[in-house]
């Protein structure tokens, strides 16, 4: 990670926090009075940032947006030549019609392999300050190469992908206009893809909860309003799912059940061991690794075993299945899991405790969570891709 990008990530946080403060200031995102938690149930943590419409996407100073860059990034996002064997463009695991994920429990991965985690949505990924389930990168510009070059994802060699771009005259011209270089560079390809991804965001006018927050008191149903109260109160969801993104962008252990495929399926087992190996576990931990250690791979601190980054709750209508390993197919299952206080885990978050929600409260909560999704998904059709040509 270069420090420049790290700074951009930090800037994004500042912008995001500023946005939250602004919203809090005008009171636009306050939960309705009925939703205020009873004092007895209030957790002993600082008041969380309120939910509310997302601010404009943060844009890093070294990768400004332009229509032409976004258009180039869109093509590259769908272009299978940005993968090892021409099979796995970004869009292979981030399909617009599958909520910009791939609808599988575990992402399909590169041919001959599988991935080992759920393919996360592109929706609103521009608002995160860290990406991937273990937060390994801090910008979309750094996420793109990790995916395009990762051996169980795109498995592309950067020098090879770069040379392919140089034999596509339309790209040569577009890169020259957008980045001013004689020949396309792979780092610029990743920047263009990041710019495109910054356009895949929720439109507040289409999100019932956002319309409600902006003053349309009819935007939520009675059930959703009751769910909103549960979210802030008895459910305690707001403790981690707060701010416009409905994520604290921190890492927690919930005790999510392991996905059974790792116990029985050779291809998944291969990737499971490979991940432990290539993420640099000490041999003794590699030998015994029977779970996904999450944030631990970044910190090598046993306290972080099994921690995963809190995902946003926006657009969940379109992004099933859920959790880092896709074990839950419906929001009902997810809510049931939280209602039980999560699963067994050695260092489970103290915030995870049985909630004692009634069946009605659970239904209301799901209804509310669905109000954080747009009325219709954002679909981008695959663009026509320019062909190779003999170089002069």
């Amino acid at each position, binding site marked *: 990670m270069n420090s420049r990008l790290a700074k951009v990530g930090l800037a994004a946080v500042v912008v995001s926090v500023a946005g939250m403060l602004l919203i809090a200031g005008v009171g636009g995102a306050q939960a309705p009075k009925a939703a205020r938690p009873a004092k007895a149930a209030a957790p002993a943590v600082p008041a969380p940032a309120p939910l509310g419409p997302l601010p404009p996407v943060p844009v890093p100073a070294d990768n400004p947006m332009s229509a032409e860059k976004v258009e180039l990034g869109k093509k590259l996002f769908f272009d*299978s*030549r940005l*993968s*090892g*064997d*021409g*099979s796995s463009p970004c869009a292979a695991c981030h399909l617009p019609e599958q909520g910009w994920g791939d609808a599988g429990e575990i992402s399909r991965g*590169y*041919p*001959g*392999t599988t991935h080992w985690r759920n393919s996360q949505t592109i929706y609103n990924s521009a608002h995160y300050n860290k990406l991937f389930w273990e937060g390994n990168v801090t910008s979309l510009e750094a996420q793109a190469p990790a995916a395009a070059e990762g*051996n*169980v994802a795109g*498995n592309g*060699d950067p*020098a*090879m992908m*770069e*040379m*392919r771009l*140089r*034999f596509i005259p339309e790209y040569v011209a577009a890169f020259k206009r957008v980045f001013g270089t004689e*020949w396309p560079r792979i780092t610029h390809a990743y920047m263009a893809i990041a710019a495109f991804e910054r356009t895949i965001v929720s439109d507040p006018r289409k999100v019932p909860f956002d319309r409600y927050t902006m003053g349309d008191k009819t935007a939520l149903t009675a059930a959703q309003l009751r769910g909103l109260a549960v979210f802030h109160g008895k459910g305690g969801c707001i403790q981690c799912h707060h701010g416009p993104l409905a994520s604290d962008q921190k890492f927690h252990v919930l005790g999510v059940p392991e996905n059974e495929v*790792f*116990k*029985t*399926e*050779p*291809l998944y*087992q*291969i*990737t*499971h*061991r*490979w991940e*432990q*190996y*290539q993420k640099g576990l000490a041999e003794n931990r*590699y*030998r*015994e*690794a*029977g*779970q996904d250690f999450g944030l631990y791979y970044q910190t090598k601190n046993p306290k972080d075993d099994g921690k995963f980054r809190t995902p946003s709750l926006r657009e969940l209508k379109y992004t099933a299945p859920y959790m880092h390993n896709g074990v839950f197919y419906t929001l009902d299952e997810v809510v049931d899991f939280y209602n039980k206080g999560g699963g067994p885990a050695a260092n489970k978050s103290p915030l995870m405790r049985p909630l004692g929600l009634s069946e009605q409260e659970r239904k209301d909560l799901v209804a509310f969570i669905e109000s954080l999704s747009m009325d219709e998904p954002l679909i981008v059709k695959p663009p026509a891709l320019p062909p*190779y*040509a*003999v*170089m002069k």
Partner: protein
Amino acid sequence: MNVPKPKRSAKALVAAAALVCWAAVGPSAIPTRAADGAPAELTPLPAGRPLNQDMVELGRYLFFDPRLSGDAALACATCHDPKKGWGDGQALSRGYPASEYFRNAPSLLNTRHRARFMWDGRLDGADPGTLVRDMVTESHTMNADGRLVQERLKQVPEYVAMWQKIFGKGSDPYGPRMFNVVGEFIRSIESRNVPFDRYLRGDQGALSEEAKSGLALFKGKAGCTQCHHGPTLSDGKLHRLGVPENPQVWNDPLRAITMLRHYSTSGMPGYMNARTDVGLYAITKNDKDMGKFLTPGLRDLRHTAPYMHNGVFGTLAEVVEFYQRGGGPGSEVRPMGLSDAEKKALVAFLESLSGDPVIVDAPALPPYRPRALGKN
């Protein structure tokens, strides 16, 4: 001699180390000439060290196993097919899916007797394990991550059992050893029952009269032994012959891409401006190495057409005709001045250097099996 700047891949570092080593001892360290300066003798293939037969056996499985490539689509045998003289029968090799390669897939016969590997001679012939590693991990050939291949092998109980028979109980399939195992198999691929070898051992009837006169030309008037001598009939050096470009390289963007990308990752200056195959120059960056390629061995040519680094010649007669002219632009060789009958005799001799086809059958590959999670 310039050495490529170290790059981030271990592969590049090893390649650089090999070059440094090469620069230190010089290609002349390879015995190519007799002490009196006369061309070295033509000799039968020497017996090498005994091979580890357990490694050869596991290596045979791995050689045919596509799980050694990134998307499990290609095995070593895909481009080094025993039935095609351990090459692929194509002028230009196919390469990894979505790529096409820009040079000919050389035969693997008699690999163990070679001084260097690759048409640009960048790999040390004493180390077939590194050759295998380069092929398995290189983007335009098998494009696999070595660590992923290692975990794939661990998922095949038969492979683990064969591995432990070689390396001991408790040993796991592991990168460098994995590649050495395949390298040991490659060492086992040798010419069999070659008429010329029988002749050298005293069987006067092993060569036709025409082939015998071809042999005399080979050593004399045609001057072939200047570069083609020793047991594999190669000096292990790189020379410029001015072989015509294969138009399929530049006219097919997929091949041009792999060529320029190879130059780019070799650290060659001005790589975007190259339009022809520069050969050794991409490795040394020394102008005098422009267009130089490794002298191939001449054994088993009957099974390994087409010929030259880019497969432009389909027959030995075409190759001899090319030398007859003294090669192409910038060639180091002189016109041979052979009569038509002499050219035919030379081809007859070259054919006597081919033995019986060396066929190794593809084994039935054992499948992945589930393992106990957490017992890695």
